[in-house]
Every structure is written in structure tokens, then in C-alpha cells.
């Protein structure tokens, strides 16, 4: 019991330290996840929420992942039930606002999977902001689509897991 408790304390302290030395502490990334797709899928989509807790605007300029060849910012446009996609160059994160990337809207298009990903796997993402700082988050691959009625099952992969270098 003692060991478990001590481990928990040191772990939470480590998270604290990681958050404290963040280059961009104003940007928080909440609930990053990846929609599970068949093993032979060439592209996947990642979703998350950005929270700008600061007073100045930030801009997301690039995203990368070691398990994908490249990552692009895309927006699904639904018009009269026709789905089209548009590439988005940058993403503005206004102060005191939360921006959600979700199915049927803004998403990170993960292109060229280097390995088959299954539900439960982790996709590391590096988010680069225009001011030169970066954020690293681990997105969990989830089988069920997220909806308003879908509770988030990945308790330990919320914003606490995100830290900046």
C-alpha cells in the first residue's frame, strides 16, 4: 500500500512539474482521441479540444506524430448532407475560448499510418504553436464514435497528460 501511495504522489508531482515548466501554459489540450479504423486504413482522424486560458491569442501552425507520415489540419464541410473536406492552414485559438475538434467538423487528418492501430493504442501528437512552443499529447484510439451521449472512458488521458517542452 505504502509503495502504491508513494508512487502516486511522485507521479502527480511529476505531472505538476511537467505542467509548471510548460512553454505555453496558456494552452490546454483536453481529451485527445483517435477514431479507430480498420487495420488497413491509410488515414485516421484525431479529435481534441483546445482551451486557451490566457489573455493573448495563439495559433496552431503544425502537427506531427511519430506513427504517421504527416498530419494535416482539416475541416469537414457538410452541405445538404454532402461531405467535403478542406485543408486548414492554421488554427487560431482566441483567448479565453475553447475550440473543439470533433467528428463532422475540424479534425487532425493522420496520413500514412506506419503501423496498424487498434482501440486502446496511443498516438503521440506534437502540436506546434506559431510562437515556437510545442505541446505533446497522447491520443487514445477509441472504437466507439464520440457523441453527446457517449461518456469519455479514458479518464487518465485528459488534459493532465498534456505537457509542453
Amino acid at each position, binding site marked *: 500500500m505504502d509503495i502504491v501511495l508513494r508512487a502516486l504522489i511522485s507521479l502527480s508531482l511529476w505531472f505538476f512539474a511537467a505542467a509548471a515548466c510548460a512553454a505555453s501554459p496558456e494552452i490546454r489540450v483536453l481529451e485527445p482521441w483517435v*477514431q*479507430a*479504423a*480498420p*487495420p*488497413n*486504413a*491509410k*488515414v*485516421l*482522424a484525431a479529435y481534441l479540444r483546445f482551451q486557451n486560458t490566457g489573455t493573448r491569442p495563439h495559433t496552431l501552425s503544425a502537427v506531427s506524430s511519430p506513427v504517421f507520415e504527416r498530419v494535416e489540419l*482539416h475541416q*469537414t464541410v*457538410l452541405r445538404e*448532407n*454532402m*461531405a*467535403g*473536406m478542406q*485543408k486548414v492552414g492554421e488554427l487560431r485559438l482566441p483567448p479565453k475560448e475553447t475550440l473543439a475538434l470533433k*467528428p*463532422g467538423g475540424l*479534425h487532425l*487528418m*493522420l496520413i500514412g499510418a506506419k503501423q496498424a492501430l487498434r482501440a486502446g493504442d496511443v498516438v503521440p501528437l506534437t502540436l506546434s504553436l506559431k510562437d515556437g512552443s510545442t505541446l505533446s499529447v497522447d491520443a487514445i484510439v477509441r*472504437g*466507439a*464514435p464520440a*457523441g453527446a*451521449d457517449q461518456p469519455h472512458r479514458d479518464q487518465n488521458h485528459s488534459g493532465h497528460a498534456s505537457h509542453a517542452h
Partner: protein
Amino acid sequence: MNWRSFLPSRRVLALLIAVIAVTGYFGWRMSQNRVVRAPAEIEDYLFWQAKDLSEFQLLRAGNGSLGLKDLRGRWTFVFFGYTHCPDICPVSLAVLGQAFRLIDQTPERLGQTQGIFISVDPGRDRPEALAEYAAYFHPRLIGATGSVAELEAFSRQIGVFHALEKPESGKAADDYLVTHSATIFLIDPEARLVGKFSPPQNAEEIVKAFSKIRAIHSEGAKSRWTLF
């Protein structure tokens, strides 16, 4: 004045008899064709009138061809997309897979229900890979594609279109996006297009509506049904 002048002329009499005969005939036909009214809560999921599909040919992933006979005798959910689609397609197919698992828990079970994922991107989607892709979401989901002309002919019957976008400058020729329908369509066992589920879809919503659509279908098995 002659009392005969109060009687209708022969011409008017003939017209009257004709009107009565025509009205009677249509009245009798309507009584034969009992109209089944769809409950208001599923109006949004139904087309105003069921549409008879005519013969078509598609390439069934991993197993020959797909035609009108493959729709008869079973309920079919149809979704158009492509496997290089990261956002809409996996989400809609996952919803459909989830709906199939839920339908299998209802008293009616899955029965003869099937789903067809039609790739409108035959240039990149090989039939074998398509079969694997579709079955991942549920074993009752089959993959299909076809030549550009075959896909267009079937899309026109369903009333949707799709477009392959040009690759961005500097990108490879096979690096393009596809604009396509995001609606899940429902075809009844008589191969008639009856229902539609617009995005964003929800599995529970589809299952509830499907069960009601099946109920009115069996109620009016051989009669016509309408929204009015």
C-alpha cells in the same frame, strides 16, 4: 310546359353515369390498396414515396457482382464513401456497426439485414481491401465499388452525387479528397428506397426508426404506404 323538360338530357345522364362509374372504380381500387400512414415520429427518416430501384451492377468486394437481386428479400443500409476518408466514413460506419449490434438484441434480431459500403473511389479502393475495411465495422457490412459509369448509374438511382477533387499542387496524383454523400440510406426487401438517416447519425436513433419502419412495412405488406 312539358314535364319532360325537367329530366336531364341524355347527354348529361351519360356524363353522370360515367362520373359515378369512374369514382366507384377508384373508390374500389383505394379500398383494395389500403393506405398505411407512417407515424409522425419517423417522417423525417422516410422518403415521401418509396422508390422502386431498377437493375444495376456493382462489383462486390471479394465476391463477384452485386445487383438488384441482392437487395430483394432483405433490408439494406447503404453508405457511400471511400477508405481514404478519415472523418465522416469511419464515424458513420462505426455508428452503423453499433446499430447492427443493437438490432441483433431486439426481438426481430438482425434477420436478413445487411449493410453495403459503396466506395466511390475505385481508383484507390481495391475490392479485397474494401471487403476487409467494411467487415471491420460489422460482419454484415459488405464492401462494393464499380466502374465510374456503374457507380454514377447507381448513385443517380439513390439521388446522390460524388466528386473526386483535384490533388493540391505539389501533391501526388493519388493524393486527393472525395466529396460524397454522408447520408445512410435504407432499402426495403422489395428493393425500394424507403429511408434516409442524415448526418450526424446516432445508433440508437437508427435502431428505433428502423424498428418502426419494419412495423409499418409488415402492416402494409402488400399495400402502399404514404406519409399523407
